[in-house]
């Protein structure tokens, strides 16, 4: 018995505008419309590119047959001689480390100029940012190609290529760290009469150092993966021997080196995680493979000495635990002998740990420089060759190729990147969502999805591409698949992390209204994570465009193939033209990404 039916229907009220008319119109800014249309166009282009790439279930099944036949033909996988293998491994690591360190050294002044709180002026800041963007946009492979020409063979081309290209990312992150410092200590040093340089070394550097070290280690991992491709353009190391093995159809050796490289990448990630932990003094927060192993070891150790006595080190003591032990003001004038004694810093656990790590780091750096056997003389003599070689690079031209071929190849590269991003996006949203704690139906699903992402990230894309190319033959199909696969590892993790970071309030509110799990996901989780989703996807597209040019070098189709050809055929004007095309494309995508992130905020 409801009240509504009981009340007599009132006579129609005077005609007032209906609620639909009175409601304010939803306002759309022209910029947002333009951005939405652009986004739509990119998605359509990606779908077309994916359709064109010839990836289909039947062809994948077919290539599975290829793979079986291929592995049957290759026979047992072989490795280089142990001594040779050891040397190559040391050389690869040393070279990558030297390059990354060079980049770190160059990045310090660049970051100082680019950071808004340290820059001497707007002009300097613009210059710093320009260096950051430019070095990031020129692929390290192109730099390596150029440097291989200028230096007699050796490790210098690789070191310089890695060193210059990495400045882009390292200086950007260095500058971000400087901008996030607490200004107080710096101001205190200024107030005490310290110079600008002293402000930096005593007030800023100690604050940013842990973050800087983490950045350098992170970049070092990336560079190690990238060093495989550098081998294809003549940089010494494991990559070079692998490319040589594949070119001479020695697949069993090539695959062997690929496996070594894969193991090396994983080991390196674990080591850098350990070092980061030692630097930051806390438990690693990342979810990388290395971080996981470290956490596991830590937990095991904690369980082991849970009965043991708690060793209270002076440095790790919580604040104020022994406060007010010494009365203030009752001028405790200790004798000078006591002060002399206090000069000797006690060897507590913290000091021992820092010293040991310091010496190990120094030994690794010195070892790297030694194993690289750098021909320092080249650094002087090469200036003489610069003019002669520089002339060959200018003016840019397409040489024997016609413009249509080149633009077609560039479009193919963009197509590979778009298709791979789309594929990765679709799978990542699924896998990444299920890997998020607040979306996954249970812990088992979440854990297995996280594990899947970790395993995918562990495989270097280039190695995957090379193996796929060997199996399916040259062409864009292998490149697209490799990029998509690698993209899932990256994007899936980013999506899972940002979905876990959304506010839980709206989700709880929807659940309280009786919404289903899927409804909560669609109406609370997804809208909150949308901005991050778009941002991360463009980041992936950005990365994939760069990676797609590189994959062409190992045979994955697109502009990279012509780049390698032009470089090996000494058509340097063509190299310049291709690099300019890549540069423009990368800058456009980066600009688009920045615009999208701003509009869809």
């Amino acid at each position, binding site marked *: 018995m409801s009240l509504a039916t009981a009340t007599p229907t009132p006579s129609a009220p005077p005609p007032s505008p209906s609620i639909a008319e009175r409601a304010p119109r939803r306002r759309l800014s022209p910029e947002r419309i333009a951005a939405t249309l652009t986004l739509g166009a990119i998605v359509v282009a990606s779908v077309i590119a994916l359709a064109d790439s010839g990836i289909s279930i039947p062809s994948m099944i077919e290539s599975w047959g290829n793979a079986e036949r291929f592995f049957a033909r290759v026979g047992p996988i072989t490795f280089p001689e142990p001594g040779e293998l050891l040397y190559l491994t040391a050389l690869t690591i040393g070279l990558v480390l030297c390059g990354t360190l060079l980049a770190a050294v160059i990045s310090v002044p660049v970051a100082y100029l680019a950071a808004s709180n340290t820059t001497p002026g707007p002009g300097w800041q613009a210059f710093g940012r320009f260096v950051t963007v430019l070095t990031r946009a020129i692929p390290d492979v192109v730099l390596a190609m150029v440097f291989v020409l200028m230096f007699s063979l050796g490790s210098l081309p690789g070191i310089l290529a890695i060193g210059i290209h990495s400045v882009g990312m390292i200086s950007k992150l260095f500058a971000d760290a400087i901008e996030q410092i*607490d200004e*107080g*200590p710096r*101001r*205190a*040093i*200024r*107030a*005490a*009469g*310290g*110079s600008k*340089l*002293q402000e*930096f*070394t*005593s*007030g800023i*550097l*100690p*604050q940013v*150092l*842990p973050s800087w070290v983490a950045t350098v280690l992170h970049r070092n991992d990336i560079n190690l993966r990238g060093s495989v491709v550098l081998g294809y353009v003549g940089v010494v190391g494991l990559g070079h021997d692998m490319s040589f093995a594949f070119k001479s159809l020695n697949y069993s050796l090539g695959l062997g080196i690929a496996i070594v490289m894969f193991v090396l990448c994983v080991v390196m990630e674990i080591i850098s995680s350990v070092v980061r932990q030692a630097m930051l003094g806390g438990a690693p927060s990342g979810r990388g493979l290395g971080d996981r192993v470290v956490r596991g070891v830590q937990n095991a150790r904690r369980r082991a000495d849970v009965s043991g006595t708690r060793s209270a080190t*002076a*440095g*790790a*003591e*919580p*604040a*104020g635990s022994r*406060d*007010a*032990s*010494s*009365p*203030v*003001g*009752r*001028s*405790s*004038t*200790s004798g*000078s002998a*006591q*002060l*002399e004694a*206090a*000069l000797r*810093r*006690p060897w*507590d656990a913290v*000091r021992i740990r820092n010293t040991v790590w310091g010496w190990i780091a120094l030994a690794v750096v010195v070892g790297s420089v030694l194993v690289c056997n750098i021909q320092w003389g080249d650094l002087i003599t090469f200036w003489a060759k610069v003019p002669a070689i520089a002339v060959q690079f200018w003016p840019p031209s397409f040489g024997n190729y016609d413009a249509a071929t080149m633009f077609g190849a560039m479009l193919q590269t963009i197509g590979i990147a778009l298709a791979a991003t789309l594929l990765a996006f679709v799978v990542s949203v699924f896998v990444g969502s299920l890997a998020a704690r607040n979306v996954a139906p249970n812990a088992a699903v979440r854990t297995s999805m996280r594990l899947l992402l970790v395993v995918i990230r562990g495989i270097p894309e280039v190695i995957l591409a090379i193996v796929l190319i060997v199996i399916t033959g040259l062409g864009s199909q292998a490149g697209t698949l490799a990029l998509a696969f690698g993209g899932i590892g990256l994007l899936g993790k980013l999506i899972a992390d940002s979905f876990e970071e959304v506010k839980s309030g709206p989700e709880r509110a929807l659940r309280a209204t009786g919404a289903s799990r899927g409804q909560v996901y669609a109406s609370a989780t997804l809208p909150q994570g949308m901005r991050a989703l778009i941002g991360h996807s463009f980041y992936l597209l950005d990365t994939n465009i760069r990676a797609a040019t590189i994959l062409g070098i190992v045979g994955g189709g697109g502009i990279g193939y012509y780049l390698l050809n032009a470089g090996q055929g000494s058509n340097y004007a063509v190299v310049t033209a291709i690099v300019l095309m890549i540069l423009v494309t990368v800058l456009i995508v980066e600009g688009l990404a920045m615009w999208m992130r701003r509009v869809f905020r």
Partner: protein
Amino acid sequence: MSTPAGNEDPVVIEVSGLTKEFGRTVALQGASLTVARGEIVVLLGLSGSGKSTLLRHLDGLETPTAGSVRVLGQEVPRLTGRHLRALRSRMGFVFQQFDLVPSLTVLENVLTGALSELRGPRLGLWSYPRRLKLTALGHLDRVGLLDRAYQRADTLSGGQQQRVAIARALMQDPEILLADEPVASLDPESSEQVMSLIREIAMDAGLTVVCSLHQVDLALSWGDRIVGLRHGEVVLDTPAEGLSKAEVMEIYGRVATSTTELEAIEVELADAAADAAAETRLADGALRT
């Protein structure tokens, strides 16, 4: 002008007609202040009254919009580079947030106070001469923290950190000590320790002290002379001795354009007391659960 004879000058700080505008907000409006050597002066005022801005002008951390700032016989706004750093090194500065470098050891934080007498950048204890390390340890002993010398600064409590900051200022062997709300971030007990430490050190070394505070009671019991600021203007300048809280309030009331300002002073005092009480309750609760 800046001859050694200037040191004998009984007047060490001379501010006249100081005006500072940040965009459209006026932080200081024709403020004047004269401080003689060895005086212990409190700048009293609510937040936003211009105390910090005035202190920062004394150290050359801000440039005035108008007016003159003479410290130790030198016109501060005219100084740049080396000369400004030289003058700054003769003034210690203690900040509200302590402003220690969290990841450095206590001893190295104290040593950064001596940077102006060293040339070039320093990082790590080894880069400081032994003589300075001994001096720094002596200052740490003076503030009662010798046993913490090799701990990271961020492992110390707030009160301890402020004592380290005082030791850092002593490292400069200053003639003037400037303190900007040195105890605003501390609990009552640590505040007491820090304030009496500053006073004892100042008396021992004959330092001139200019310290900003917002608590009337503390200012009256601690300072020799009270300088009241309101809306960037000096509204009160009188010896602290014999002055009562009611009198201070009355003076503030007389210059206040409305009673609301006087109320604001009372409310702020009451709030501070209530906050402290609430924090204690919270801490107790946290312990119990």
